[in-house]
């Protein structure tokens, strides 16, 4: 990672610093990298997408769940209009699957009609109410009397999307710095001095996309307008064998209070199925623990919609946190995204409360940020902007002839590292040489899928450890996700 640090860092004045390497921050920096600007992305963790962006349903929302006129609604529908094209440009696994919101009985049909009307008002294309026969045609195995069918909804790998956005931005000159939490901010007449353990940076403008911690980051700059409350959502994920059971995300009729969308069932782009999430306010913004009670509840709720899922084993569970602006006691009720320039600190843009549908909305939020400040400053678009990113090829997705060709050209494609997800040594080595120098086990997992299969890394971890050592990473530097998450405690014998 040190090679990315150029001696001139301390002297450079950055035009914009984005704080937070989640999907929103990465979308912003990628959007801004169209212009002739000195850009800096600061992320506190050892990889991008380590917070809210890695642990969610990965659903591309069409925009019928959000109130007309809200920023959520506008950025969702605008984002929908951009995200598919963007995913293609960046080579991110995604699929336009369509989506069903299912009512088990006639009594819930009016609620579906309401959702449809709301979606129509928001400008969501193609929504229709369908009956039982259509449900079983669209998604065999799904129980339901009526459903709202949204043909433009889809799925995307949220962390690959995030990483791809950052890689594209970096390709266009943006500096991406990891393990760089902003610990102090000095507000100066001409901008902000951001202090991180990796150096201090003078920046003219700041985009605060720090997710769960955006309130704390804002407070460092003397902005105390908001507080972010973490709401935990637990998930279970099935073996890929279950993938064939479900063709599209299936949601229940959402709870009346709109607090969340309800426990739903979502296929992932890789063919697993996600159950979840729950929704519980927690105290700690890092509390991503799973609980026995919720895991049991998820199973039973999901099985009422898709009974067939009961046949398949779960290979993983995890929890994500929603950054909400509504407190659990209901004293503060802010349900919309905050996308605004601070009144007290001109040049400081706050992006707060970007929960669902933030993943879909991210490209639109990024475009708004660019408009907010770009128009004023007469930013110049670079002629050499590269909109695309070449994704690393995946052995598992290649045809027989492509595989044979790869192996013939480079024997490392013939060495299987992960037996469950069919990942080769070539892919592992490429991923370990990623542009940001991420060398954590979780970072490798998100880039290659090593360890995401049914053995959960039992077989591939020892092989990866060997490869990491050959790539020059000492045993003592191997972590699950940076910080104190060291994998081992040294050598047995020297």
């Amino acid at each position, binding site marked *: 990672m040190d090679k990315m640090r150029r001696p001139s860092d301390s002297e450079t004045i950055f035009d914009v610093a984005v704080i937070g390497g989640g999907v929103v921050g990465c979308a912003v920096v990628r959007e801004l990298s169209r212009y002739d600007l000195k850009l800096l992305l600061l992320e506190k963790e050892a990889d991008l997408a380590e917070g809210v962006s890695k642990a969610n349903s990965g659903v591309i929302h069409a925009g019928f769940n959000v109130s007309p006129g809200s920023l959520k609604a506008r950025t969702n529908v605008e984002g929908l209009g951009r995200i598919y094209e963007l995913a293609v440009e960046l080579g991110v*696994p995604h*699929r336009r699957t369509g989506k069903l919101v299912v009512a088990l009985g006639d009594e819930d049909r009016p609620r579906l009609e309401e959702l449809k009307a709301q979606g129509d008002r928001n400008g969501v294309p193609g929504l229709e109410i369908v009956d039982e026969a259509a449900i079983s045609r669209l998604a065999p195995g799904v129980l339901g009397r009526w459903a709202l069918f949204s043909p433009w909804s889809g799925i995307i790998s949220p962390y690959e999307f995030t990483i791809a956005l950052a890689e594209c931005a970096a390709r266009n000159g943006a500096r991406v710095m990891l393990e760089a939490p902003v610990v102090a901010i000095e507000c100066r007449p001409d901008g902000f001095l951001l202090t991180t353990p990796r150096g201090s940076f003078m920046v003219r403008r700041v985009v605060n996309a720090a997710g769960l911690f955006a309130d704390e980051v804002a407070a460092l700059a003397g902005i105390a307008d908001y507080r972010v409350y973490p709401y935990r959502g637990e998930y279970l994920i099935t073996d*890929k*064998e279950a*993938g064939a059971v479900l063709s599209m995300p299936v949601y229940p009729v959402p709870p009346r209070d709109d607090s969340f969308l309800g426990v739903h069932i979502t296929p*992932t*782009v*890789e*063919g697993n199925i996600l159950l979840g999430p729950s929704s519980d306010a927690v105290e700690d913004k890092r*509390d*991503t*623990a*799973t*609980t*026995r009670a919720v895991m049991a509840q998820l199973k039973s709720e999901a099985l009422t919609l898709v009974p067939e899922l009961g046949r398949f*084993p*779960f*290979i*993983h*569970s*995890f929890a994500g946190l929603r950054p909400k602006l509504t407190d659990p006691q209901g004293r503060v009720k802010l349900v919309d995204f905050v996308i605004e320039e601070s009144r007290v600190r001109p040049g400081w843009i706050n992006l707060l409360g970007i929960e669902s549908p933030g993943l879909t909305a991210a490209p639109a939020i990024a475009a708004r940020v660019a408009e907010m400040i770009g128009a004023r400053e007469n930013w110049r678009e670079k002629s050499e902007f590269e909109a695309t990113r070449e994704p690393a090829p995946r*052995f*598992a*997705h*290649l*045809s*027989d*002839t492509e*595989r*044979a060709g*790869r*192996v*013939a050209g480079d*024997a*490392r*494609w*013939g*060495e299987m590292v992960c*037996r469950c997800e*069919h990942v*080769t040594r070539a892919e592992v080595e490429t991923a370990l040489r990623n542009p940001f120098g991420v060398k954590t086990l979780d970072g490798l997992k998100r880039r290659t899928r090593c360890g995401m299969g*049914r*053995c*959960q*890394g*039992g077989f591939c971890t*020892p092989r990866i*450890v*060997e490869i990491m050592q050959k790539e020059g990473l000492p*045993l003592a530097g191997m972590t*699950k996700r940076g*910080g*104190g*998450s*060291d994998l*081992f*405690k040294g*050598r*047995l*014998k020297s």
Partner: protein
Amino acid sequence: MNEAGGNGGDRTASLPVERHDVVVIGGGPAGLAAALGARRAGAGDVLLIEREKCLGGILNQCIHDGFGLFLYKETISGPEYAERLIEEVAREGVSVRTGAMVLDLGTDRVLRVNARDGYRLIRAGAVVLAMGCRERTREMIGIPGPRPAGIFTAGSAQNLVNLQNIRVGNEAVILGSGDIGLIMARRLTFERMKVKGVFEILPWVSGLERNVRQCLKDFDIPLELSSTVVEIRGRERVSAVVVARVDQDLKPIAGTDRLIPCDTLLLSAGLIPENELSKRAGVELSPLTGGAAVDESFMTSVEGVFSCGNVLHIHDVADWASFEGLTAGRNAAEFIQGKRGAGDKVRVGAGAGIRYALPQVVRRGAENVEINFRVTRPTRGTWVEVRGVSTGKTVARKKFPRLVPSELQKILVKPAIEDDLEVSSHD
């Protein structure tokens, strides 16, 4: 791009297809023996495919002794046991491909194999499945909590410790009393790690009793039965686990929680036959074993596809996996020689007190069929009986002084089998 788990599809026309008489998938104790069995029964061209760089499978990391008592009549270490089988395989002229992984097995016995020297399609006259098993993970057990580093399955830890000289932690708790966990408790103690206890959710030990004696008692490592880990603590690295006693339904009992500080959790809570290839080939699996349903020749529901060792059912002793391999290999050879006649089959079921019986089907008229079984709970002075389901006639009966779920047992049915059978135990 988004075809999940793409396996090459049907665009195979341009790749040449290599042919072999018998292909054995997996070079562990079962697969090595299967290759031997096939050669000795006269199969001309036997190919053994192993995904690791050398043959031996999991034996290579089992540096403790206790292997070979039945096959070689002496006790040797895992690597030594492997070495002997590997020498025999070399002498018998088996073709070996290591560092080669079978990615797919079609219903037509066409394999897709990837290796550094090429990606190939191979058509086999007969296939012997010997891929072994994998370990149950934290997720399958369903232990709640955050997701710190420091959680290992016992077998992964064994690999890291024994083959890579890595200290996996300083203070460990072991969940599950499977044999690998027991062996690792001793191993970690040898390496000056503190093992704070072994916790088993069942009221009895899952591993062999000799391992409890030699690996735990001799080193004063506490073993607690009817107890389990109910929560993991620690955000970055494990800092503690919470253990609790469980009731008869294996549910944690409120108020029995106990916090045990540790930086490592080892899981030895069950093995799962790794049958992904078998499923792709259309092999019917037994819900009781997690492995293929086989007949007395170890042939699966797919003609010409045989199964043996831990991919068929979990063994407690490697030697038995090898014996099974020898038989499966021999039968695979006989299959390609056309010596195995078709015929209708009767079923073998598990009755009272029996967790599973194997083979699950037998050709009508077969004689001297050995039936493997495991009991559901420990008993003493038990009669085990094999009875015809429609005739009610007892065809085999044997008294066992002691039966435990951790030990695979056998009973021989001498007379020709004409009826569906059921194995049952009676205290």
